């Protein structure tokens, strides 16, 4: 399948500090890929390198297979929205989009109304940009991204400042664009549940390096399942588990609760072990880790350190 974005040993340093460590990455056509990392992990810098806003210290970027001088032409096929979109504050939405329509050589003027309709700004098109709320600014940024009918969208925190309804609308819009127009989407957001509902691939970035790259299925398998136990003797349960499984990873929680993160496949044996040793098991089930919890494991440094 055609690769939309490829990087080879892409590196960015500011003075002595390597903010993006040599990174190999590729995004295939039609994917919705989420870039996940805490503040300062290097997400925006990685996006800025792709957008040409900052130049790499080392390494190569290929967009639609083009690099070097031809990359500018390839960038025209991508709609970027990085950090808060910037527009002329004294212009209305229509004037701002008209400026970019002329600049991008979009022939049809009605495209402006179309994209404003898509992002739900049709009723606010005559208001000056300086009077826009953060959410409206984000929507206008997405409208700009769509203006020239891109094949790929690179969106950095597109739902920032949107209310719950707005977030849902944008998610639906992005899914629709991906499914109906096969637009490839590369997105970051701090609302990880939204990403989980949207993306098919999850790339975790930490300290400027990609530390994990998972498909949705793989993430489900990896993040899924911990054994949740509610027992009458918490200390005895912990002791039994440690004696039987020396490498066991578990957490002791309030309300006589214990969660076990490994040996998931031995859930039946664990249940039998507790019963055999007169531990009353009031509750026993398998539960999934949400993306937030999986992500927090990276942030806290429990994984891949």
């Amino acid at each position: 399948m055609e690769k939309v974005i490829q990087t080879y040993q892409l590196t960015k340093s500011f003075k002595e500090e390597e903010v993006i460590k040599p990174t190999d990455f590729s995004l295939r056509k039609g994917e919705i890929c989420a870039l996940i990392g805490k503040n300062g992990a290097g997400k925006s810098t990685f996006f800025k390198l792709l957008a040409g806003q900052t130049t790499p210290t080392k390494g190569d970027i290929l967009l639609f297979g083009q690099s070097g001088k031809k990359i500018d032409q390839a960038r025209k096929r991508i709609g970027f929205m990085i950090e808060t979109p910037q527009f002329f504050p004294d212009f209305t939405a229509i004037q701002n989009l008209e400026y970019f329509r002329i600049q991008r050589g979009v022939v049809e003027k009605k495209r402006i109304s179309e994209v404003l309709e898509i992002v739900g700004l049709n009723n606010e098109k005559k208001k000056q940009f300086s009077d826009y709320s953060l959410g409206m600014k984000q929507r206008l940024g997405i409208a700009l991204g769509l203006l020239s009918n891109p094949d790929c969208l690179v969106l950095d925190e597109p739902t920032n400042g949107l209310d719950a309804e707005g977030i849902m609308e944008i998610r639906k819009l992005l899914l629709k664009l991906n499914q109906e127009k096969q637009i490839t989407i590369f997105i970051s957001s701090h609302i990880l549940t939204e990403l989980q509902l949207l993306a098919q691939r999850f790339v975790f970035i930490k300290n400027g390096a990609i530390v994990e790259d998972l498909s949705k299925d793989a993430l489900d398998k990896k993040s899924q399942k911990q054994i949740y136990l509610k027992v009458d003797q918490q200390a005895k349960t912990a002791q039994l588990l440690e004696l039987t499984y020396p490498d066991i990873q578990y957490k002791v929680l309030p309300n006589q609760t214990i969660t076990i993160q490994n040996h998931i496949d031995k859930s039946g044996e664990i249940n039998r072990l507790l019963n055999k040793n007169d531990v009353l098991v009031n509750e026993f089930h398998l539960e999934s880790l949400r993306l937030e919890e999986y992500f927090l494991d990276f942030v806290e440094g429990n994984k891949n350190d």
Partner: protein
Amino acid sequence: MINYLKSELYRLLHKKNLHLTSIICFLLILAAGLVLSYLPKVDPSFPYATSPFFYSNVISSGVLILIVGLLFNIALTGKDITVIKQSVAFGISRKVIFWSKLILTLGYFIIVCLIGIGLMVVLGENLFTSDTQVVISFLLACLNMIPIILSGFLIIHTLKMIKVGEAYIVITLFFIYTFSGDILRPLFRSVSGLNNLYQYAPSTLLTENLLNFMNESVKFEFSYWLIGVVISLITLLIGSQKFAKISID
């Protein structure tokens, strides 16, 4: 480049503040002419109600003209510069952005300057005693000033594009176009071969041009154009190279 130029022109034409600044400049010229022509009626001994004095206000205001140039340049490179991140992300080269903004702001500045000079001549010839020789001297002095002023405008543009603050730009302008001669003179007095360098400093050339105009000895000076072109080329070379490398946030 054409599309980018067109879009910047769209922005320029919709900048109300810019047109307002131009109108204020023209009104100030008009007010200066009217006040000068009116003062002899109040004080018959007032000696400055002459076209040479009226014109000399322009010839002596090199830095002031550059400050006005800074205001025009800010129109496309001030807060608006934040918008270029979207243009860069769309694959518009930094070279195109740098030169397009320069062409438009410079073009607008030149048009305003030409209208201003035209207005000066019309007022000078109608409010004061008409003298063709004075007009010719004024136009020759303006011709000498053009490369120096344009070099200053290019410095403004370059510094704005590489995100240097306005206060630093004003200091730089004063340094080059007001004090450079006074600094170079003592600095290289004892250095053989460089002791006359101050004579080619922009501030010295602007002062000399004013004195020549007042002494009615002004003539076209090739050295002004040479210095102006050298400063302009160096500025644009460094500026375009630096702009190609800066991060655009």
